[in-house]
């Protein structure tokens, strides 16, 4: 698998590190991942940092994964509803799958996502982990 280029990673740092979304100034819709044009047609968007806690809506355990994650199987991926209602898909870490269930409280954590080989850049980003499980 070809990694994301260094410039693209760099441009996405606010989104990857701090869940910075775009909010439409016209209709108020929040977009994550960020967009350049709202579905209402407006291009007037402002940055909005999303909350760092939420609850698990649903999750799945992946046994077939992309090349970058082959050595991390199985991968738990979940749909999380953040405390302001915005839904984000992300990896669920530090989870004992048998204890995981929809509704579980989760928090945003900062983790390594991919490393570009032994000499390239380490790319960091958000993941989720259960709280109190």
């Amino acid at each position, binding site marked *: 698998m070809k990694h994301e280029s260094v410039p693209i990673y760099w441009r996405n*740092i*606010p989104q990857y*590190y*701090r869940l910075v979304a775009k909010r439409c100034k016209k209709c108020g819709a929040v977009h994550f991942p960020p967009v350049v044009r709202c579905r209402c047609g407006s291009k007037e968007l402002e940055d909005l*940092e999303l909350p*760092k806690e939420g609850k698990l809506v649903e999750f799945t355990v992946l046994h077939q994964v992309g090349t970058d994650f082959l*050595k*991390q199987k199985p991968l738990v991926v979940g749909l999380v509803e953040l405390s302001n209602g915005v839904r984000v898909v992300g990896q669920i*870490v*530090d989870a*004992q799958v048998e204890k995981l269930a929809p509704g579980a409280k989760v928090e945003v*954590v*900062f*983790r*390594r*996502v991919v490393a570009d*080989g*032994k000499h390239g850049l*380490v790319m*960091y980003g958000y*993941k989720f982990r259960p709280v109190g499980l």
Partner: protein
Amino acid sequence: MKVGIVSWGAYIPKYRIRTEEVARIWGDDPLRIVDVYLVDEKSVEGIDEDAVTIAVEAARRAIRRAGIDPKKIGAVYAGTESKPYAVKPISSILVDALGLSNNVFAVDMEFACKAGSEGLVAAIGLVKAGQVEYGMTVGTDTSQGEPGEHLEYSASSGGVALIVGRDGVAAELEAVYSYVSDTPDFWRREGSPYPMHGEGFTGEPAYFRHIIGAAKGLMEKYGYKPSDFAYVVFHQPNGRFPVRAASMLNIPMEKIKPGIVVTHIGNTYNASALMGFAKVLDVAKPGDKILLVPFGSGAGSNAFVFTVTDVVQERQKTGVPTVEDMLRDKIYVDYAQYLKMRKMIKLFD
């Protein structure tokens, strides 16, 4: 004018390996090993964790506990000896991961396990000079020990962040005193995967000389006696050293015990003494005096005296996980999982 610790945040990865599991692999007698080091189990970082991610988690908790706007933090220091990059700072990743402004003094520091506490000295200096409103230092490590070598029984992972300021001080700095000399007790050359240490050299001429030198120097210069302190926290490479240092200074056991974490998570290097300090701050009462003495091989110590203020009670009620919470929140792994998580199995890139 009060200057001191405004807030603290600690992070211990969730995974643990028991000493007996490590001993099983290398043919050591687990009872003897536990008896020598007083370490029952140690923390292990997850496969996607490193000194950077651990620093971010600890720092986020410190900011949450402080309830301050991160843009008011004007200096950020990372002290570590397990940088994922030889060249590329952790501190600049912290700037963007924490949402600090770009007008911030930032550098990574290296002095074995002492660097994080040296960052504290630097941050306090900038706050005192009026150069920054708040400063932050993070001690973070995923420390290495050669498999099968004795260091492996203690080398572990964790991080602690401290925010320094003059507004909302929870533990006021009263005094600080340093003690440093060229002592070859422990080192890692560029490119070496694991550190070397002089067996029998790490104790008397290194740990004890510098910890006692800093603590005694501070007490003599500023007129403290052991009975002034409610809590005493030393660097904790194992469970025996801090207890012995305390007895050398005539400090009773009950003052040192609350700050001991090495027995449950091992030696988190730059977070070792600071983790004990965070654990004490989690329970300290206004008026308590705390003596904190981190140590770094190579070698040196800083001795700090803090007086806890009324603000501490507010900070203790913020819902941020305490060190005690994290000591309990754990998943055990076996030796094979441990090697995988610590990225010690050789793979193709």
